[in-house]
Each structure stands twice: as structure tokens, then as C-alpha cells.
């Protein structure tokens, strides 16, 4: 139980996928303009990430490891993620039009979200067990949402600021992200204190 908690906290705060590993930067820059849309994106990512790490763990440990096919892992993982996202999209669209309206437009973006594949790869390289992988996937998604929401909040206020012309748009967002990364640096060692 303690290990799970450690994974949970460290994935959200210390080894945050966005700020420490630069995963999922594209949607991070693209969708963080408005609070409402970043919330939708965050939820969609959390959902798919939990599901994909779970399924990737099963396939990796039940198929690839026994047959010694480690070199196929990238192809298999991306196949799983791409198909999964598409299936989730179809399901949501059919059974919950409300949810589809809220999350639908973000789902296709998720396939190309490096955070999802990154989470699957980290799970393998860190030798996580099944439950650990599920927790890792879930907390990875939460960490992504957290940073996305903080960023969106800052960017909404940034509109009132007099940003020098050449810094408007992407540059100021990147610099803000840099400052945010420094803030999160302070969480390093949280679990060793």
C-alpha cells in the first residue's frame, strides 16, 4: 500500500510527466488556453492513460515476455493505444452523447499525445507490477491534468498583462512553463525528507 502511495504522489508532483519528462507538451501548449477545455482534455487523458497502461501491461507481460519479443513493444503499444482511443471514441459517441460533446474533440488528439505512450514505456522500464501500473497510469493522467489546469489558470490571467509583442503567444507560455517547472522542482525529495 505504501509503495502505491509513493508512486501516486511522486508521479503527480515529483516526476510529473509534463514538467519533468516533457511528455504531452503539444496538447499542453495547445489546449491550455481556457480552463474549461483543459479540464475536458485532462479528464480524457486520465481515462485513456489508465486504460492503456492497464492493457499494455497485460499484453507485455502475458505475450511479449513469454515469447521473448521485447523488440516488438513499441509497435504493439502504439497499436493498442491507437485502436483503444478509436474504440473509446466510438463507445462514448454511441452511449453517452453528453460525454462525447464534452470530451469528443480531444480524443483524436490523444493518440498523438506522447504522455500516453511515455507512460506505457516508463511502466515497462520501471518494472511495475499490475496494480502499480494501474495506479501509475491513473496518477500520470492526474498529474497531466493538474499542470494543464494550473497553466490554463495562469494563461487566462496573462491576457490582462502587457506582454512584449515578440513574446506573445507561444514564447510567454513556454517561459511560464519553465517557471512552473522550477516550482515543481521544489517537490523533489518530498518523499525522502
Amino acid at each position, binding site marked *: 500500500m505504501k509503495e502505491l502511495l509513493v508512486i501516486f504522489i511522486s508521479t503527480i508532483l515529483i516526476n510529473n510527466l509534463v514538467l*519533468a519528462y516533457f511528455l504531452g507538451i503539444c496538447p499542453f501548449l495547445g489546449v491550455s488556453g481556457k480552463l474549461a477545455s483543459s479540464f475536458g482534455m485532462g479528464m480524457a487523458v486520465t481515462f485513456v492513460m489508465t486504460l492503456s497502461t492497464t492493457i499494455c501491461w497485460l499484453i507485455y507481460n502475458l505475450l511479449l515476455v513469454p515469447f521473448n519479443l521485447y523488440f516488438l513493444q513499441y509497435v504493439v503499444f*502504439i497499436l493498442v493505444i491507437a485502436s483503444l482511443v478509436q474504440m473509446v471514441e466510438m463507445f462514448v459517441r454511441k452511449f453517452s452523447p453528453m460525454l462525447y460533446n464534452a470530451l469528443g474533440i480531444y480524443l483524436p488528439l490523444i493518440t498523438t499525445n506522447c504522455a500516453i505512450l511515455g507512460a506505457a514505456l516508463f511502466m515497462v522500464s520501471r518494472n511495475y507490477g499490475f496494480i502499480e501500473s494501474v495506479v501509475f497510469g491513473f496518477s500520470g493522467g492526474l498529474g497531466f491534468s493538474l499542470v494543464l489546469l494550473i497553466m490554463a489558470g495562469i494563461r487566462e490571467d496573462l491576457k490582462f498583462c502587457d506582454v512584449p509583442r515578440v513574446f506573445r503567444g507561444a514564447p510567454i507560455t513556454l517561459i511560464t512553463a*519553465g517557471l512552473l517547472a522550477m516550482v515543481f522542482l521544489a517537490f523533489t525529495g518530498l518523499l525522502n525528507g
Partner: protein
Amino acid sequence: MKEFTRGLWYEHPTFRQLLGMCPTLAVTTSAVNGLSMGAAVIFVLFFSSLIVSLMKNVVPAQVRIAVYTVIIAAFVTLVDIFFKAYIPDVSKNLGPYLPLIIVNCIILGRCEAFASKMPVIKSLKDALGMGLGFTWGLFLLSSIRELLGNRTILGYQILPAGYDPLIIMILPAGAFLTLGFLVALMNRIEQR
């Protein structure tokens, strides 16, 4: 010619389109890493553009993304195997970011937006331009970070020993800051 030069400046993937950010920021702690990542991207982009452009008429819409990503993943695995076998040090430094080329938005974006609609030769030119543009972007970014954070470029000491390295430059935060300033600089040049 237009297909080729576009990626080098006007539609530069890193500084203009802000694509493929995750390897851009993650591996640019040293110039060697930046260059080898660039080379890997050029290789993958070239071959996957070739295949996607050849296959564009046979792939049904429902599995389009799945098929493209599988093709890209196959080439990335090839590069990964190759790096592991012949340049293991670089492979270790790039770590999980090499496989993440698969979801690099540049590659998928180019396959989706360009190679899947254009004839083979044009998409190959586009792929080369984008790949080279990406590589020089990576090289610039990683040189600045290596210089300020470690006093060196490509391992050669440039700044005198009296200069106290800015450690923050090789930490994640430095990546964001450097890229932010570079994009602003690009905007400034363009405004003239």
C-alpha cells in the same frame, strides 16, 4: 524546391509550428544528443513518408491512424535497435525519448497532412526539409543549454573555468526558458 525549403525556415517545425516538443525539450541537454535525435527523426520521417505516401489510397479511414502509427513505430524500432547495437552510449542518453519519436507530432502530422495527400517525390522533399529543420533547431537549442549549463559544446570546453555553470539550464525548467526565448527571437527576426 518549395517543399524542401519550407521546413527549414518558414514552417520550421520547432520554432514556428511548435511541433514535436517533447524530444525537443527532453534530449537537448547536450549537443550530441540533439544531433543524434535529429538524425533519427530524419530517417524515420523519410521512410514513413515514403510508405504512407505510397499507401495513401488503400488505407480505410477507420484504421488510418492505427496503420500510420504502426508503420512509424516499425521504423522507430529499427532505429532503436540500430542505435543500441552500434552507438550504445547515445542510445542510453536518449533513453525513452527515442521510442517517443513514434508519437512525435512532426512525423504523424507530416504523414497526416502532407504525405497522405501528395505524390511520393513531393512528400519525400517535404520530409527531408522538415527533418533537417528539426535537426538544426535541436542543435541550436542543445548547444545553448550545454554551453550555459556545462561550459561545453559537443564536449569541447568553450567557456573559461571561471564561469559558474547555470545548472538550471540542463534541468527541465531551462529547456522551457531557452525555447521560449528562441521562439521570441524568431518572432523578432520575422518582424523586421
